[in-house]
């Protein structure tokens, strides 16, 4: 990659960098640009540019509509275009080789690929360009598939002329392009893990095993989280508390992991490699820690039924699933039946999907107006595990399951359904729009059961059935953790369900839009323990990969101030909301102290709010300069002068 740094200077640029005459000329040019940005002032020496244009057929996806040969012939006429080639798949190995070989052989100094959406292959082609020894930011991607051939299928002439204009625009942009380098910042080799449940413990332990220092912050007074209060985990039937205690012990013994209990995050600032975090521990003053990466393992909360939802809190014979697990754990082995509210439990009903898969118009929204429309994923198997356990421990107790769908989706989980069926658990299936009703049994019938559950059972063609039971267990699921402060401090994204959202579930799992922040476990949605551990392992691996480098590399698309053009008026500074990203600094210019705007590349997010207000055009976004946008507009408006790509071809549908 060192060749990137040795980017060939264009002729006429060989003057000493700090030649006063040149600086003066630059200032003059900058001022001219401010008065009339219409006339471009640098990088437009056409004769000096050698541009390579590569047009992809995409195996017919593009070439069935766009006349790619005509596109190639036409764009060759644009000044500076040294070569224009058509390839069936530019993204293939031979396609990429053509680009890197041409750069070397023909001394290309700008490359355009017209193919699919940049989200698919922009990075691919930047790589090919870099392999040819050219700065990867002297490359432009033109989208002629999603935004031309697929969108104008019945207008091949229009699609072809549009492709030509879009390539002309890209070439215009490249005329004003300058080589860019990724931003490199020091990397603090220490991770902050927020949350000491099984996800946080796993992430911390995996990171430490890779030799990385970890600070683990837990808000409760002990490690382990929800698993401290669970019975046995499916499908291995190990004791949950024991399992998590082993992991906690490993974490506590590891010298590389510092654990802070009863502690909370108060503020987060900084960026990847350099986060500054205020941690407040009970009975201590807040302290600031530096971390290179943050893993959010804040977990979930158990859904608490609303007042009177299925008689919860009104009738003592109604329990949530976690409460039922506690009851099973606290019932002595010698007991011959469960006991609730002083009476023997002869029949139990398990009601699935309480607080999950909620429907508008059927269920009451939460206090914040949200409906939990999602499936909580773990409750079905947990219910069946508990139902089976009841049948095995107390074989005289009748067990009834009221479900919408049985979602025992994981490996080994379906066995719980099969075994529960064999063990005599009776299933009733309800339609989500008509959930079963629970009523307290009138006193005269109380001997048959404290409660009666009425269901329209779709398994018996909507027959209305009433089942008397002594205990109703509500199959409550997971809701998002109470982390509003953290979401605000770290600018995290949440989905409609309120759980944290990863950038892309398939291409970038466990990553969030904020670089250097990763998600582990149920903070991002309902997961079982296996999935939680996988996510935590993935987050730890990704954090460790970030630490593999001495420096953090960031995209160069941030604001930059032309120090010669800046007058220190600070209009830009007033527009910036990101603390520390853009500020005024005092420097000495020709023996005088002057104020100039300065960007902190690590804190700048590249929104460009500052760019519009500068009268001098002194502040620009790298890779997205205003003169580049002007040039693109010209390419679209003018196309290739004299060529048959004028708008007249287009018919409005």
């Amino acid at each position: 990659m060192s060749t990137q740094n040795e980017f060939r200077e264009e002729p006429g640029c060989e003057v000493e960098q700090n030649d006063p005459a040149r600086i003066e000329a630059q200032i003059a040019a900058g001022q001219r640009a401010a008065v009339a940005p219409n006339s471009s002032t640098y990088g437009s020496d056409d004769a000096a540019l050698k541009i390579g244009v590569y047009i992809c057929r995409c195996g017919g996806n593009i070439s069935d509509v766009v006349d790619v040969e005509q596109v190639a012939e036409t764009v060759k006429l644009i000044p500076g275009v040294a070569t224009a080639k058509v390839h069936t798949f530019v993204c293939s190995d031979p396609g990429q080789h053509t680009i890197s070989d041409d750069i070397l052989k023909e001394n290309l100094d700008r490359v355009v690929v017209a193919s699919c959406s940049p989200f698919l292959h922009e990075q691919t082609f930047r790589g090919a360009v870099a392999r040819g020894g050219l700065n990867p930011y002297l490359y432009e991607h033109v989208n002629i598939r999603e935004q031309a051939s697929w969108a104008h299928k019945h207008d091949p002439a229009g699609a072809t002329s549009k492709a030509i204009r879009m390539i002309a625009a890209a070439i215009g942009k490249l005329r004003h392009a300058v080589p860019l380098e990724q931003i490199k910042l020091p990397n603090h080799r220490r991770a902050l893990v927020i949350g000491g449940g099984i996800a946080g413990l796993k992430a911390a332990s995996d990171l430490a095993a890779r030799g990385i220092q970890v600070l683990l912050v837990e808000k409760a007074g002990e490690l382990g989280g929800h698993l401290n209060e669970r019975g046995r985990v499916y499908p291995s039937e190990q004791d949950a508390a024991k399992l998590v205690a082993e992991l906690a012990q490993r974490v506590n013994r590891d010298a590389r992991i510092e654990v802070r209990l009863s502690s909370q995050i108060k503020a987060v600032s900084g960026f990847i490699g350099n986060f500054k975090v205020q941690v407040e521990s009970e009975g201590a003053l807040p302290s600031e820690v530096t971390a290179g990466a943050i893993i959010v393992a804040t977990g979930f909360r158990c859904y608490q039924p609303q007042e009177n939802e299925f008689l919860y809190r009104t009738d003592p014979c109604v329990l949530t699933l976690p409460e039922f697990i506690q009851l099973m754990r606290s019932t002595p082995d010698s007991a011959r039946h469960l006991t609730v509210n002083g009476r023997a439990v002869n029949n139990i009903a398990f009601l699935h999907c309480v607080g999950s898969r909620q429907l508008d118009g059927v269920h009451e929204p939460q206090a914040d107006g949200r409906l939990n429309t999602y499936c909580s994923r773990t409750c079905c198997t947990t219910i069946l595990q508990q139902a089976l356990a009841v049948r095995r421990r107390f074989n005289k107790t009748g067990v009834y399951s009221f479900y919408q769908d049985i979602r025992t989706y994981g490996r080994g989980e379906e066995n719980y359904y099969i075994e529960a069926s064999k063990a005599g658990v009776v299933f009733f299936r309800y339609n989500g729009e008509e959930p079963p009703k629970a009523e307290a049994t009138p006193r005269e019938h109380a001997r048959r059961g404290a409660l009666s559950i009425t269901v329209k059972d779709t398994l018996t063609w909507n027959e209305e059935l009433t089942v008397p039971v002594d205990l109703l267990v509500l199959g409550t699921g997971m809701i998002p953790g109470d982390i509003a402060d953290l979401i605000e401090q770290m600018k995290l994204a949440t989905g409609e369900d309120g759980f944290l959202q990863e950038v892309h579930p398939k291409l970038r799992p466990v990553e969030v839009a904020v670089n250097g922040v990763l998600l582990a476990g149920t903070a991002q949605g309902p997961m079982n323990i296996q999935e939680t551990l996988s996510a935590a392992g993935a987050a730890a691996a990704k954090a460790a990969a970030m630490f593999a480098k001495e420096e953090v590399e960031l995209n160069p698309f941030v604001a930059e101030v032309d120090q010669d053009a800046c007058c220190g008026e600070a209009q830009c500074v007033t527009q910036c909301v990101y603390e520390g990203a853009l500020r005024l600094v005092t420097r000495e210019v020709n023996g005088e102290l002057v104020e100039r705007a300065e960007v902190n590349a690590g804190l700048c997010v590249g929104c460009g709010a500052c760019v519009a207000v500068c009268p001098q055009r002194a502040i620009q976004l790298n890779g997205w300069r205003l003169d580049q946008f002007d040039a693109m507009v010209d390419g679209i408006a003018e196309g290739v002068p004299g060529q048959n790509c004028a708008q007249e071809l287009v018919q409005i549908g």
Partner: protein
Amino acid sequence: MSESFVPKILVLATEKCAYPGADAVGKAHQEYPSNVHILRVPSPVLFPEDFYLRSFSKGIDAILIAACGSDCPYHGAYEKLAARIDQLTDRMKAGGLETERIRLTAICTVCIKAFLKEIALLNEHLSRIGPVDRALAEQLRTESLARLQGTDQLEALSSDARGILV
């Protein structure tokens, strides 16, 4: 309107929302006229007023600013953008340039229908109002730049001098 007039539409599509939204239209094989040209932008908040006016002066007949709306990944950028476009619209109105030529809207990554609706609406407006008055746009651009510069000169003066001027 003469039948030969085919307008040029420029779409400034945000990288995080509207650009993938426009991709989604193509992926769904939904069609719209090929006079629509889409440029990817981190956030259109970066454009000064004169950028739009310059585009009109170059023969772009309408500009659709397809932003992220409330999903904007940058703090406060959408609100700033909306204020800037409001100001631009006011200036266009005062200067006699049809305000139908500029539209600010939010297009999400899956907003296929909304995208198609916006394009249809702009083409409909343009078939009514016809080609942009390029000379007028150029005049407004020059004025806009002078205003930017004028503020600059005012700011550069000492506060005393400014007091006298104002």
